[in-house]
């Protein structure tokens, strides 16, 4: 296998790269999709044909250079091809989060000024039809899966568009080819709407040049090869998936595998055994939770084996992975562990063949991170943004530390502003926010530096460390530094805590909302014969509150160890009876907490945290999965936590 990186400059757009791949790797697999229980493979030649037909069909429908194509649905080969078809004609695809509610989708469709949309299935089509009533600019809706669509009128199926395309290509064989040739590296390639923890989403415009640079830079950094396999299961609207599955797919000639459905990802992962893997911390955490629960159900011998070999792996696994010197006895024991525990476990997790694995998006707990590295999975952290075409920093091989996000990728410059904010500049820096020069100017300086909005610093190893969102870092009344996300992340590292929101800026002390993890706490309760009927009931149990309190105690002990944070210990907390949800606007679509919004929405609870009351009453509106509204109301009890102090810690040590 050759490394995939060097390619001539003339292939400066994805459609041009596709033409090249369809020639050079004609019969090699390009996409796979599990359908009817079997992995269906498409070669690069077939992909070229599919894209060509669809593009020609779009010409027939009047799709013009600069037109925008909304793409909405799960990761499907045909949706990826649709993006390339639009780009072949000089159009700009706009992928949208598939679980967006109609109003969120409507905003994007209208703001992008899209005339065309392609939807995966009936569910998405229904949303688009709803939108069409208020956004008449949306002219054409194309759907992929014909299921349930027999009685819809005025829509076109993917196959029908391709049939029209065949007609066009019969009369003008080069109709698509000539358009593809007109494309330039500096053209707009894609628009990705960033969720943002505040305000309306912004449409970041990235050029082919941005994306192709990023794809190559990332591939070079970690030695991605032609034919490397990945599973595309994260939303197509997210910049990470766009780089890994799409840009790097074309630049490096990767094999993109699409799962059968969102619910089968774990099985599909195991069947494919990707070599290139990405998972947000949330997924990594869930996997460990599942493994832990299953191990607790395992027999005595298995449990012992697992525990002792995992302890050994934690001690030497990461060192072996990094190629540092490890004694022979330890190496032999690790090899035995690989045979008995690590190998089978990696196989179950679908990670047997993983060569490069990234996690990003949120801070990842050291224990979680080290678990995978101990097993021998080359897990690294990556720091990136939509505005950077993902790559800013990555952990280099042999320099992986759980408390940093790595070193700058080649051609990326970093600087730290006086305020502590991290800024970067690279060839991947986005062109602009669509129709929003104000926001563009606020984010990007005239000489190309981009404000990340994150506070951080470079440590003496040259690694970047991120503390918190720059805007979120605040101070308590007495002047103590308060970094909410830092505290929330510490809480979230416990498997029982799914989400946390910390308050404290301008207050006397720090307090927190906690969301329990239904799976982990449910299992915990079951093992103690505690019966519960619903999330709400489980979340309001005193026993559960006690469990959370003990975890908050250990967070406080951690904070005490850091002199800057010792004053910002959690003094009061409550367990929310409702899971924070993006449908209610409490999280962003990428599942980041919108602290300000939550503070407003649950104001009575926040007030109660600070006025000393023991319980508080709350009533909030909720949105159900099908879009209907309802309300949840109830009494929430509030708990005090005694702060840890240095003398107490010393006492404990002494006893």
């Amino acid at each position: 296998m050759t490394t995939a990186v060097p390619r001539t400059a003339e292939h400066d757009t994805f459609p041009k790269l596709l033409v090249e791949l369809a020639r050079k790797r004609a019969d090699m697999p390009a996409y796979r999709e599990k359908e009817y229980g079997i992995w269906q493979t498409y070669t690069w030649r077939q992909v070229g044909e599919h894209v060509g037909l669809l593009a020609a069909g779009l010409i027939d429908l009047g799709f013009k250079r600069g037109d925008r194509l909304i793409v909405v649905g799960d990761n499907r080969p045909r949706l990826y091809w649709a993006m390339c078809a639009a780009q072949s004609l000089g159009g700009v695809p706009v992928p949208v989060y598939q679980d967006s509610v109609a109003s969120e989708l409507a905003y994007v469709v209208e703001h992008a000024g899209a005339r065309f949309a392609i939807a995966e299935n009936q569910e998405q089509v229904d949303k688009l039809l709803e939108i069409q009533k208020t956004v008449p600019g949306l002219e054409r809706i194309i759907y992929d899966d014909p299921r349930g669509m027999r009685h819809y009128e005025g829509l076109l199926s993917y196959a029908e568009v391709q049939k029209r395309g065949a007609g066009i290509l019969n009369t003008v064989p080069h109709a698509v080819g000539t358009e593809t040739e007109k494309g330039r590296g500096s053209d707009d390639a894609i628009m990705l709407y960033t969720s943002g923890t505040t305000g309306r989403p912004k449409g970041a415009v990235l050029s082919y040049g941005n994306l192709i640079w990023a794809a190559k830079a990332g591939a070079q950094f970690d030695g991605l090869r032609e034919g490397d396999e990945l599973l595309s299961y994260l939303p197509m609207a997210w910049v990470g998936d766009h780089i890994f599955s799409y840009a790097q797919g074309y630049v490096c000639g990767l094999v993109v595998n699409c799962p059968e459905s969102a619910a089968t990802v774990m099985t599909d992962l195991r069947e494919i055994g990707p070599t290139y893997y990405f998972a947000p911390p949330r997924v990594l955490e869930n996997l460990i939770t599942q493994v832990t629960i299953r191990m607790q159900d395992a027999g005595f011998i298995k449990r012992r084996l697992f525990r002792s070999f995992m302890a050994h792996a934690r001690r030497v696994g990461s060192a072996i992975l990094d190629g540092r010197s490890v004694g022979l006895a330890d190496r032999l024991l690790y090899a035995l562990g690989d045979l008995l525990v690590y190998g089978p476990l990696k196989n179950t997790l679908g990670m047997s063949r993983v060569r490069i694995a990234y996690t990003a998006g949120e801070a990842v707990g050291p224990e979680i991170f080290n678990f995978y590295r101990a097993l021998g999975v080359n897990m690294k952290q990556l720091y990136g943004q939509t505005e950077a075409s993902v790559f800013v920093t990555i952990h280099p091989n042999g320099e992986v530390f759980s408390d940093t996000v790595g070193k700058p990728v080649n051609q990326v410059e970093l600087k730290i502003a006086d305020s502590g904010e991290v800024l970067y500049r690279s060839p991947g820096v986005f062109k602009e926010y669509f129709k929003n020069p104000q926001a563009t100017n606020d984010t990007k300086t005239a000489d190309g530096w981009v404000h990340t909005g994150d506070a951080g610093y470079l440590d003496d190893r040259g690694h970047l460390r991120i503390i918190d969102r720059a805007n979120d870092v605040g101070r308590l009344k007495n002047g103590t530094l308060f970094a909410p996300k830092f505290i929330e992340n510490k809480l979230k590292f416990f498997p029982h805590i799914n989400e946390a929101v910390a308050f404290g800026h301008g207050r006397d002390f720090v307090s927190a909302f906690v969301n329990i993890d239904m799976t982990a706490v449910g299992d915990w309760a079951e093992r103690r014969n505690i019966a519960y009927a619903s999330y709400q009931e489980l979340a309001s149990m005193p026993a559960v509150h006690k469990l959370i309190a003990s975890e908050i105690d250990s967070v406080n002990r951690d904070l005490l160890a850091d002199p800057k944070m010792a004053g910002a210990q959690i003094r009061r907390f409550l367990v929310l009876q409702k899971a924070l949800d993006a449908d209610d606007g409490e999280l962003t679509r990428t599942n980041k907490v919108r602290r300000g919004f939550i503070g407003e929405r649950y104001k009575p609870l926040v007030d109660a945290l600070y006025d000393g009351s023991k319980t508080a009453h709350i009533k909030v509106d909720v949105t159900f999965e099908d879009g209907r509204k309802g309300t949840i109301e109830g009494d929430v009890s509030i708990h005090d936590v005694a702060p840890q102090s240095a003398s107490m810690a010393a006492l404990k040590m002494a006893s």
Partner: protein
Amino acid sequence: MAGRQRVFNEVLLSVEDISLSFGGVKALTNISFDIRKGEVRAIIGPNGAGKSSMLNCINGFYHPQQGSITYKGVRRAQMRPYEAAAQGIARTFQNIALFKGMSTLDNIMTGRNLRMHTGLLAQALYFGPAQREEIEHRRYVERVIDFLEIQHVRKLQVGRLPYGLQKRVELGRALAAQPELLLLDEPMAGMNLEEKQDMCRFILDVNDEFGTTICLIEHDMGVVMDISDRVVVLDYGRKIGDGVPDEIKKNQAVIDAYLGVSH
């Protein structure tokens, strides 16, 4: 949403003057109605009205003492359930009757049983004709699995699945038989709202895309009025109403039967 306005002419099955009794208990008394090709036909009625007995007569499990059933133009005296199945009648049950220890896939494969032609010996040898046949059937079963969106439980033991999913697997097994007439006995009993909505969608899609005629028993009036083309109402083993949902809603006898009236 009111019932859908569709018109059906061809009679698929007609029930004429049926009476069924168990000893002295009269389960059904002089019932007549028909099921037309392509429609969704609902049978409703209070508890003990004779709805399940009616389905059992249609698929040959019970043998009415009086009256006749004509299916696809053939009047039949007595029929065994497997004969009914061979002629294209499939059903699901009020309290799920799946093979709990088998996987979803295997359960649905059993729905293909009547369509398998290779003999025991060939199947034991597996390679050759039996393998080809198995692949053909598996292809169809996978279509059903895809249709009902149960890919994620394909290889899981059915007994461990939540109730709503088990109901869906049972529907899958009935569909795998490629029936012309599908009998559903309370397909939504015990489901939450979301599961009910899913099930409604599946029933309508089956009707639409496979062209299967559906006869269902259901208690949820909202569901019945939404998805059925015509409704027949039983009470104490007698037919008290028959017509499109809008007529049934206005039918005084039906209202009395449901709300109760002093006799």
